[in-house]
């Protein structure tokens, strides 16, 4: 484990809220988010920014390559070093980690991280097609596939092995949508208002790919967010409530989930083979199989080691998980070590991950309700965690905001492909 050279913190986030459609185009949306950041950090001057780390996923959705150049130019930051990070859904988390590496190693002191995605220029079926081209286009895409189907099939396998039910997936959907109504920037709130939903609404929601219903799936969004990250020497200039990065971890897994039956690099988890019920043929690599997310498992291990965490459930106050489909949330409870393998269902049944529970997950509502403009997604949820650790949720979201009292330490994940890439960051306040 490399020893950090110096401490690095998130100093604030500016938001251009996610919604199904915006009249503004991407550069105007990013500029609006940057304005918001400048308001949050009034001392921030363009000269303070050493480099720009840009987070956006698709070149297809807008038929624009090198969109990052437009953004840097539009913000008037085109004399700075600029980097684009792209790793599917993991893009914004990856951008944060890459910015962290560059600051921590001493190359730069202050990095601006703008993230955005404009996903609604083509019809939804075509957006799905363009996103699915992040899957293996020779092998997985041609078979009627897209991510809803891949993830549904993975959840079916997990469900068969460990016995969670559709109702468990429904409970997660209800929790997240209702959390989302407390976020005044939420896409769900913009389209459906603040009325809470129930399991009844969940059962009525249209089946997309069994077992996933509409309410289990990430939404399509347009939106932008700008994060400011700085080295400890500069932090005080921008904020009184820095959110320190105390652990980071990245992990990857096979491109095709179907290859995970013989996933040689994960042969180290074979001890867990006993979990397999009698009727299932045990694959050569019992973990992650085609059910769990090994990339996140190793990413979390790396981040926990750096942050000195041994019992994440006890030692972390709240989590923002990247869950494009609700089964991912259930699996991640296990992969992140909040519970044993196959026990994810109890986390939701026993209310452990609800507001007021031992470890609330997705108080933001997350990707299925509040919004998922890919390149901005994790930056929004990092901003929400920043408000949590700064104790500013009610200030930013109003009196209904779900502030976790005295929150000190939080975790966020990123997640690309079918878990082909994943990452974890641990945040702490002073």
């Amino acid at each position, binding site marked *: 484990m490399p020893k950090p050279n110096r401490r690095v913190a998130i100093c604030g986030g500016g938001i251009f809220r996610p919604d199904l459609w915006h009249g503004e185009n991407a550069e105007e949306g990013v500029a609006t988010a940057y304005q*918001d950041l400048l308001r949050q950090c009034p001392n921030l001057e363009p000269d303070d920014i050493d480099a720009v780390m840009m987070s956006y996923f698709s070149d297809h959705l807008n038929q624009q390559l090198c969109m990052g150049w437009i953004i840097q130019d539009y913000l008037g930051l085109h004399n700075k070093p600029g980097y684009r990070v792209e790793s599917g859904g993991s893009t914004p988390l990856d951008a944060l980690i890459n910015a962290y590496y560059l600051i921590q190693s001493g190359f730069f002191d202050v990095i601006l991280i703008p993230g955005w995605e404009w996903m609604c220029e083509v019809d939804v079926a075509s957006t799905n097609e363009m996103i699915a081209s992040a899957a293996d286009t020779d092998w997985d895409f041609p078979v*009627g*596939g897209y991510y809803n189907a891949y993830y549904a099939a993975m959840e079916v396998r997990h469900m*068969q092995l460990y016995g969670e039910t559709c109702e468990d997936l429904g409970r997660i959907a209800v929790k997240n949508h209702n959390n989302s109504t407390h976020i005044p920037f939420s896409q769900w709130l913009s389209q459906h208002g603040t009325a809470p939903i129930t399991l009844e609404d969940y059962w009525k929601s*249209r089946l997309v790919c*069994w077992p996933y219903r509409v309410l289990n799936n990430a939404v399509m969004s347009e939106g932008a967010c700008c994060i400011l990250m700085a080295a400890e020497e500069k932090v005080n200039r921008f904020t009184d409530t820095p959110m320190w990065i105390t652990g980071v971890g990245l992990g990857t897994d096979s491109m095709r989930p179907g290859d995970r039956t013989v996933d040689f690099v994960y042969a180290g988890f074979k001890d867990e083979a006993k979990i397999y019920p009698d009727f299932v043929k045990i694959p050569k690599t019992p973990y992650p199989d085609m059910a769990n997310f090994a990339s996140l498992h190793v990413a979390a291990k790396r981040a926990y080691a750096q942050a000195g965490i041994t019992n994440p459930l006890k030692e972390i106050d709240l989590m923002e998980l990247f869950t494009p489909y609700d089964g991912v949330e259930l699996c991640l409870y296990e992969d992140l070590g909040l519970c044993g393998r196959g026990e994810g269902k109890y986390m939701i049944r026993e209310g452990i991950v609800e507001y007021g529970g031992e470890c609330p997950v997705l108080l933001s509502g997350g990707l299925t309700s509040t919004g998922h403009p890919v390149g901005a997604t994790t930056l929004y949820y990092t901003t929400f965690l920043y408000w949590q650790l700064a104790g500013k949720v009610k200030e930013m979201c109003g009196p209904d905001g779900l502030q976790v009292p005295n929150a000190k330490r939080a975790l966020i994940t990123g997640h690309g492909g079918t878990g082909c890439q994943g990452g974890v960051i641990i945040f702490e306040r002073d």
Partner: protein
Amino acid sequence: MEEEKGLTEIKLKVRSVKRERERKYRDYPAVVDKSTAAHDFWEPIVHLGLWDIKGHQIVKGPWGGGTVEQAKKRAPKEFMVIDRASFALYSHSYGLVSPFFRGLLEGKLMGTKCPKCGTVYCPPRAHCWNPQCKVADCFDNWVDLPSAGIIHTFTVQCLAAAPFEHMLPFSMGWVQVDGADTTLSMLLHIRPKELFIGKKVNIEFMPKESRKGDLMDLYAVAAIQDEKPPEWACLQKDPKEMESVENSTKATLEFIKNRYGIDNSPETRGW
């Protein structure tokens, strides 16, 4: 609109005017060429877009930063939204695993076997990914596989990406072909009420003349006729779920019939 049509016709002519096709591999013999005629037909069509603006709308909508409430309180602005189209035809090589896809054309299933660790790959890998084998060559070590396997996992789709929408509803899944260590994605021509993990399937091929050389050339069918799913099968063990899947697939059938005039019902398709 008429004027626009005329312009598009001219541009299409520019595109399709007979000239020798680019041959990036013109120095190498095309042992089989089922491409040139198709190319002449499709190349102009995929370029119908031509980056032309096909139309526009003026949309009055919310703008600016802040919360949903703040945005919706502002006087809306008028945004011009243009419709712009473009695309291209890709000539993509299947590389060293090309024999697999030629095998599909012949109705044959093959995998590669690592000469070092013995892992059998289907989907085939040209090089072994076992780190111990240091990307050992597998591409000259093909094994014939039987047209049979077991379902590793599956889903029932009532929604699909654009190219597959007209086929809805359908099931796709991953099948471990007998003798292979990895699993292959394919369509499952099996009704939801019979689908379960661990189910034995046979792999069948489309009629020879309609095979194209991708995984859509094959599909799985139940190996055992009218097999009753075991009591632990996750889809059928909850009758409420099964009913919801049946209702959703019915609604999807209706939707596809109305939208495309295609009848995908089990009575017509046979599954």
